[in-house]
């Protein structure tokens, strides 16, 4: 089956560092850009579109575009936190289709570990002018706390258990042992997870992602250019994006905007969940990945606890191989923004370039999903469906 696509991902690069004491943020962006260009077989002079998020220091794209001395005719700094980078792929495809650019560079980079932002109890970076600040800050809102409430409510509504949540980390850690760059390479058991200290009940320490320095980059281009390059081709066949908030006080925190972004991407690609061979899911916490599994239609709502048990997310063993790089739970979670690394491993899987121990056989259709912001408060989901070809 061959689908029309306006754009291809032709370059992908993940920075090998997880601690970057000696590299500036701007240099990290430049290094991942150079890495993705080399991967694609393109040069800096080919870039005419630049997409970045607020991890790019300076006003929007301006400082980095100047630092890298890019010659641009299209820029986009859409910010939906960690889901931005999948939206950037979608917006790059749209800009390419509209003739606004030919070769789009997307970068993410930073060094939160050096800047003391790797603590689990990280406070939100809020502005008192944001209208919700007044109604949340006085109650000590923290990322851990809202995800703890999401997990608590899912347990209450559906009977999900800590042991079931632990299976997500077990699968990620199984994959990470094969990734030489992964920050945490030791496989863990369900017992290891549920016996790790509670940090924000019911979340245990091993339910939580890592925080890393580094970053990644993608190059998106039009079909004619993609076909002139030597790398295996990765076609962008479906995209979706959707925000979700508290809806005036009538909301369900176990629902995610992946219900909408996923439906849009499936419709555009004209595929269904059972067609997907590999999935990258944003795993800021184990529960985050679980809600995406439900809302992207891989199981019934409320059934994800049973779905993830017994290694069902482990490549070569389960029905839904996920985050074969080790994900944000074990491999890499640069700048607390997981969307980029979700796309990078999906690209590797489609190219057949994942580690042989975790490569999904004949992986011709993959889905990458990211959640940005915070579930349970305000977030945006973005979905990409990628096809070989």
């Amino acid at each position, binding site marked *: 089956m061959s689908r029309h696509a306006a754009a291809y991902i032709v370059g992908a690069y993940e920075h090998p560092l997880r601690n970057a004491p000696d590299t500036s943020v701007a240099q990290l962006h430049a290094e991942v850009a150079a890495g993705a260009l080399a991967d694609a077989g393109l040069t800096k002079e080919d870039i005419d579109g630049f997409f970045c998020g607020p991890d790019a220091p300076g006003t929007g794209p301006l400082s980095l575009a100047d630092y890298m001395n890019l010659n641009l005719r299209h820029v986009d700094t859409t910010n939906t936190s960690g889901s931005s980078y999948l939206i950037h792929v979608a917006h790059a495809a749209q800009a390419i289709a509209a003739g606004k650019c030919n070769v789009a560079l997307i970068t993410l980079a930073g060094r939160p570990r050096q800047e003391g932002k790797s603590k689990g109890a990280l406070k939100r970076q809020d502005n008192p002018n944001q209208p919700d600040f*007044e*109604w949340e*800050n006085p*109650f*000590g809102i923290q990322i851990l706390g809202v995800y*703890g409430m999401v997990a608590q409510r899912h347990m*209450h509504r559906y009977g999900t258990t800590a042991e079931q949540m632990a299976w997500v980390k077990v699968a990620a850690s199984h994959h990470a042992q094969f990734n030489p760059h992964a920050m945490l390479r030791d496989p863990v058991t369900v017992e290891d997870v549920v016996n790790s200290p509670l*940090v*924000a009940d019911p979340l245990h320490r091993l339910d939580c992602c890592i925080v890393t320095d580094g970053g990644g980059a993608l190059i998106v281009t039009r079909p004619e250019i993609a076909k002139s390059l030597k790398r295996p081709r990765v076609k962008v066949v479906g995209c979706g994006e959707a925000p979700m908030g*508290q809806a005036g006080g009538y909301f369900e925190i176990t629902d995610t905007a992946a219900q909408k972004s996923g439906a849009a991407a499936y419709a555009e690609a004209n595929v269904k969940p059972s067609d997907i061979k590999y999935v990258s899911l944003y795993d800021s916490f184990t529960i985050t990945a679980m809600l995406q599994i439900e809302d992207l239609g891989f199981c019934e709502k409320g059934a994800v606890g049973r779905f993830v048990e017994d290694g069902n997310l482990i490549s070569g063993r389960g029905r839904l191989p996920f985050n074969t790089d080790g994900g944000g739970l074990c491999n890499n979670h640069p700048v607390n923004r997981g969307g980029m690394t979700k796309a990078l491993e999906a690209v590797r899987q489609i190219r057949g370039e994942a580690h042989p121990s975790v490569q999904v056989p004949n992986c011709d259709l993959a889905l990458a999903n990211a959640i940005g912001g915070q579930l349970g408060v305000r977030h945006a989901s973005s979905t990409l469906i990628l096809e070989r070809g």
Partner: protein
Amino acid sequence: MSDYLNPEPVPAPDTTIFWEAAKQGRLLLKQCRNCGKPHWYPRQLCPFCFSVDTDWIEASGKGEIYSFCYMRKAAAPYVLAYVTLAEGPTMMTNIVDADIGSLYTGQKVEVDFRKSVGEWSVPLFRPSGPGSL
């Protein structure tokens, strides 16, 4: 958890009335005169029908726990929670004076105003039946 002091609210120009009422132990809500629905958090424009015709009403102060999380790593641990008010909307708050181990979703709670670190009072909730301390 009784050592926790809530960060000071920063009232907006159109919400000072809420925080003044909170000092007097009254929980206010915004309700739309056009569509009749109360909402949270308070806005001048109804988030359902976009009418500007919204009123402050006094809430009963009764509700039930929607979800909660015990923030045990904080210097002074506390319970972050959502409480669904009897009037309908769900608001973020803290649960106080509770036996942490027996908290549950659906538990009946009632409002209890506590002083913040500064000059204001904030609407927290405590179990209204079994489970309170």
